């Protein structure tokens, strides 16, 4: 009997002992405490930037590779965030879109009070027009994106959705949720859709 208890005790203690030898587990509450204490000088209107919404928290936890059920929940939630223009027209002015695609302005602490409108910063991550070689490679090339899709209406909507909220398409996508996070307006997104999807845009020449 005592021997049995001893074995049981050892077995009971084993997982605890091996767990303590591993590196400590950091949950989102622990991270949040660190974040709060590391941004003590942030003005009140910046406080929301210190917290995460459910999607950010899940993508952080799973390092952008969420299990299927979680991914489905994210896509459903993010889809619901997308707002469309009242008149249903998804294509704006590609020339304005071009400027927005070039501009990385907006949202940085040196950008207040705002001196101009927020940009989409697409060139930071994507190749778009063949004429602009100063482009980043975090995202896929969008050169001739509209042309290669025959300017189809379905793809126009897909691009609108993608810019408004890429996580409505792919859970934990790296591209920012520019519409859903309030960085770009519906009008601006329409102009960007035009830049990517209209036949007279330099992206498709």
């Amino acid at each position, binding site marked *: 009997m005592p021997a049995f208890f001893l074995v049981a005790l050892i077995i009971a203690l084993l997982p605890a002992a091996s767990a303590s030898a591993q590196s400590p*587990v*950091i949950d989102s509450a622990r*991270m949040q405490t660190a974040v709060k204490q*590391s941004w003590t000088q*942030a003005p009140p209107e910046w406080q929301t*930037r210190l917290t995460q919404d459910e999607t*950010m928290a899940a993508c952080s936890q799973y390092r952008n590779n969420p299990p299927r059920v979680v991914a489905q929940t994210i896509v459903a939630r993010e889809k619901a965030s997308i707002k469309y223009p009242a008149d249903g027209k998804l294509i704006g002015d590609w020339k304005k879109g071009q400027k927005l695609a070039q501009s990385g302005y907006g949202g940085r602490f040196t950008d207040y009070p705002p001196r101009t409108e927020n940009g989409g910063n697409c060139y930071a991550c994507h190749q778009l027009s063949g004429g602009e070689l100063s482009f*980043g490679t975090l995202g896929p090339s969008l050169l001739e994106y509209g042309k290669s899709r025959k300017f189809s209406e379905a793809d126009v909507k897909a691009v609108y959705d993608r810019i408004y909220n890429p996580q409505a398409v792919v859970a934990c996508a790296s591209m*920012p949720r520019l519409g859903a996070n309030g960085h770009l307006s519906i009008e601006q997104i329409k102009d960007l859709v035009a830049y990517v999807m209209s036949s007279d845009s330099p992206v498709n020449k």
Partner: protein
Amino acid sequence: MPQQQEEGRVRRVRRATLWLLPWVVTGGLEITLAPSLAQDAIDASEKGIQRYRQMLKADPWSNPAMLDVDRGEALWKTPRGPKAVSLDGCDLGKGPGVVKGAFAELPRYFTDADRVMDAEARIVWCMEKLQGFERAALLKNPYPGGGRATKDIGALATYVAYESNGQKLMPTLDHPKEKEALALGEALFFRRGGPMDFACATCHADQGKRIRLQGLPPLSKPVEARKVVGEWPAYRVSSNHVMTMEHRIYDCFWQMRMPEVDLGSEVPVALTMYLVKTAEGGEINAPGLKR
């Protein structure tokens, strides 16, 4: 020591020729690029930096950051602050006054502060506790604008890092709080936040990516981290001053649209711990030179 003063004077003289550096390194990058020149510009910029790195090997004193090594050394050794004492009593982890080799084991746990600190956090601690400087004043606007010299904390950190040159990054991780800092730093590296949903990993996890024309080192990969982490603090040519690792991280948080992170606070220290641990075994080659 007279010999050190002599060395200092020599360094100061060589600096005079350094004003050309931004031209050498950035080439045409600051101008709007003619399309066909963009790739050339990346190459030219890289070549400029490469060329300059070779010059640095031949003559380490030709790095403008040596100015701040000098300044930092003077700041360290001069009695300053309300208590008018030098930092010779400052314990960077290897005992009071021991600067040589200390940087190689930072960040580390300090019993007196009961927390993990990197070079900058520890320097602030010593300036407050030993010299009597007011902490809040030290932490207010701690980083210089473009073209302005790094502030005292930055110069001190540059001196401290320089004194570990040639050694390998070797965080000890003996204390549970050091282990926790590492785990926290890793989690924070993947933590997405702000209006762009960015995490450090968005820009620094994959090989061969760039933002516009700027290459992004994958800092979660030991082989890559070892190449760059030991170069900080570094002279950054495009902003004409030395940046410490915490300043670099602060700047990346700016890109992430986060507010200004406090110098020496838990987040930048934990991230530094993660970067240093990932780069473990990499050689300290500070101050380095960056685009």
